[in-house]
């Protein structure tokens, strides 16, 4: 399986990354692409920009551990995770997850799983620029419960 994990400050091309994963292969029947984008609002206040801080030594390792976990749960044929850091403005790409498999269910589930874990376990923190100053984004319980559903019934979510 082809695995690509990158942390970078520069932008990425989601379509090009997805095409790369299936290029020259005839066993892949499904490619799912998820792109997380910087929004101009959050919880009732405006967001003019945000800065993503990360733990350089750990972020890559942690993402790799979750990609390995996803490989054990679903028959993946490829996975790409790109997470940006630095300052981003509304409309800018933040994160990309691409998963490839023979069938769509595994590709959808693995992409969903990887995003849930990126939000709650990968060492990244968002500092928002708001009308009244800057503020750190607080972790959401909805993100924790989204990640917890994969622990409740291991593998069950694959179906």
């Amino acid at each position, binding site marked *: 399986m082809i695995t690509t994990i990158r942390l970078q400050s520069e932008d990425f091309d989601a379509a090009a990354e997805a095409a790369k994963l299936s290029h020259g292969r005839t066993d892949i029947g499904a490619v799912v692409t998820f792109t*997380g984008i910087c929004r101009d609002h959050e919880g009732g206040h405006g967001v003019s920009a945000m800065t*993503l*801080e*990360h*733990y350089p*030594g*750990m972020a890559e*390792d*942690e993402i790799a551990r979750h990609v390995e976990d996803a490989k054990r749960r679903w028959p993946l044929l490829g996975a790409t995770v790109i*997470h940006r850091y630095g300052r981003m403005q509304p409309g800018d790409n*933040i*994160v990309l997850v691409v998963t490839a498999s023979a069938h769509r269910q595994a590709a959808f589930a693995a992409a969903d799983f990887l*995003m849930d874990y*990126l*939000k*709650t*376990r*990968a*060492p*990244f*923190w*968002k*500092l928002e620029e708001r009308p009244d100053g800057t503020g*750190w*984004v*607080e*972790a959401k319980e909805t*993100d924790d419960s989204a990640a917890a559903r994969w622990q409740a019934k291991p593998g069950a979510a694959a179906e």
Partner: protein
Amino acid sequence: MKLLYFAWVRERVGKAEEEIAPPADVATVADLMTWLAGRGEEYAHAFEKRKVIRAAIDRVHVKPDTAISGAREIAFFPPMTGG
């Protein structure tokens, strides 16, 4: 051992990293947070909500009762908000 701080923990402590040598009775991650909180006003402020703060030893998430002996790098940070 080397300590790393991220996000608002880093802002409150006032530095991103430092070398420390805690006393021998500081055995766990929770002990270390208690010891750090006693090092001054900025540390007390950073570690006042200890239950919220997460830790990693040598770049792997750990729980507060994890032993710190043998650790080369310990990081403290708020709950993660990536993705």
